[in-house]
């Protein structure tokens, strides 16, 4: 009886430790974030922050080397960033992926940015051909949506379109953002894998 109770007790403790380990890991996990730099300038009294991403057709390493992703400055998949409420967010996206095309052509329209426009390689644009879209940067809750022009499929490695735009950060809160191009290669309708996984083609903007 004593031996049996001891075995049960030891197994319970081991199980508790294992469960506690994974719960601690989960609760304490901080996803990779994108470093945001505060500008010394202000626009109409608003602070200005610069946020930069690079989009690639495949990460090349890690758990999912073949997945498409937004990368931070370190070259790692990262889709979380923090900005101050009311600030002017200056986005720069170095778009290195080729075009997939939009399922809904409407998302080829630039909307919700300052002036409802963007620049692509310093050229002002308000829309692109939906078939030339590699990705979008879209924050539905604040109506920001920007199509990202794809590079030619035979472009040399490292070729990119530099997409820049600005929007005003909303009130404090957490806002999800995502890509509307079905770019999850090899998944049903292209909407699985990286499209359904935070840190690749979906993320959160935390406004505080």
């Amino acid at each position: 009886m004593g031996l049996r109770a001891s075995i049960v007790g030891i197994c319970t403790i081991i199980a508790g430790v294992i469960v506690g380990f994974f719960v601690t890991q989960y609760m304490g996990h901080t996803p990779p974030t994108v470093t945001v730099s505060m500008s010394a300038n202000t626009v109409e009294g608003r602070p200005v922050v610069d946020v930069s991403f690079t989009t690639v057709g495949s990460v090349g390493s890690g758990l999912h080397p073949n997945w498409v992703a937004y990368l931070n400055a370190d070259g790692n998949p990262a889709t979380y960033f923090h900005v101050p409420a009311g600030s002017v967010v200056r986005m720069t996206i170095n778009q290195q992926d080729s075009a997939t095309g939009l399922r809904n052509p409407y998302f080829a329209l630039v909307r919700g940015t300052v002036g409802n426009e963007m620049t692509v390689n310093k050229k002002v644009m308000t829309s692109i051909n939906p078939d030339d879209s590699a990705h979008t940067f879209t924050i539905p809750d604040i109506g920001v949506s920007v199509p990202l022009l794809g590079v030619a499929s035979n472009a040399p490695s490292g070729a990119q379109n530099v997409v820049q735009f600005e929007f005003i950060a909303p009130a404090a809160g957490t806002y999800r953002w995502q890509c509307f191009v079905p770019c999850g290669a090899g998944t049903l309708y292209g909407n699985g894998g990286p499209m359904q996984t935070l840190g690749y083609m979906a993320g959160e903007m935390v406004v505080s």
Partner: protein
Amino acid sequence: MTDKRRRYIRMFALVWFILAVAGDIGLALGPTPPFTASDLASSQSTVIKVLSVIAWPVFSAVLAVIAFTLFANRVAPHEGDVPPRELRGDSRPQIAWITASIVIVLSLAVYGTVALANDQPGAGISTASASLPQPASASDPLEVQVIAQQWWFTYRYPTYGGIETPQLVLPVGQKIQFHVTSLDVVHSFWFYALGVKADAVPLNDNVFTATPSQTGTYRVQCSELCGLWHGNMNADDAMVVSSSDFSNWIQQQQAMDAPILKYLPAYSHTYAPNPLSYGS
């Protein structure tokens, strides 16, 4: 039957009567969701109110009988072991109960059938073969297409050049014919305040009609589990506005959509983006 048992019966009958009457007064006079922001919502609200008013006395009667049984048949500790009484059928309450049940259920069936028959034609019924919209007039319903995609609703207004917007704005007092479809997986468009809830199914055109009767800002959301951001596929910016405000808004959207209009597909009740060109 003992005097004590009769006392219990009278007491619980009185409690049930008070509960039933008080509850029914509250249900009849109080607001009932989804309230009155459209004719469809008002109709649903009335149906729910009628069902609740009928159901509440039945429900409270069940509670009263349970409570009566617990109290009337309770055996005090000092009474020791009491053999259970032999139960014999009593035809009078049985007949009363069965008759009441039949009357209530059949009445509700008739009422529900009539309410359904009187509902807006096309409500929830696919009319994928319906003709495309004609230019709007005051008497025609305004057609608004709801396009669901992972994970945002967009809306097309075919009578205004087929413009598409991510915000739903409707004119008050105008009958709206919603055409709901999806570009990828199954979603469900739920405009709770208007009483509209329609599945958005790829290659299907799900039609609902409703006439907004109150201006305001409302919530729309997806009510079909559809992936990562399903819980966020909602918007609190759907608006019902005056006709003049609606006209102004439409003009703004037409100007805003100008760069993209040439790329939008011709208006159709369903769309078939080629899935083979994606995800491969």
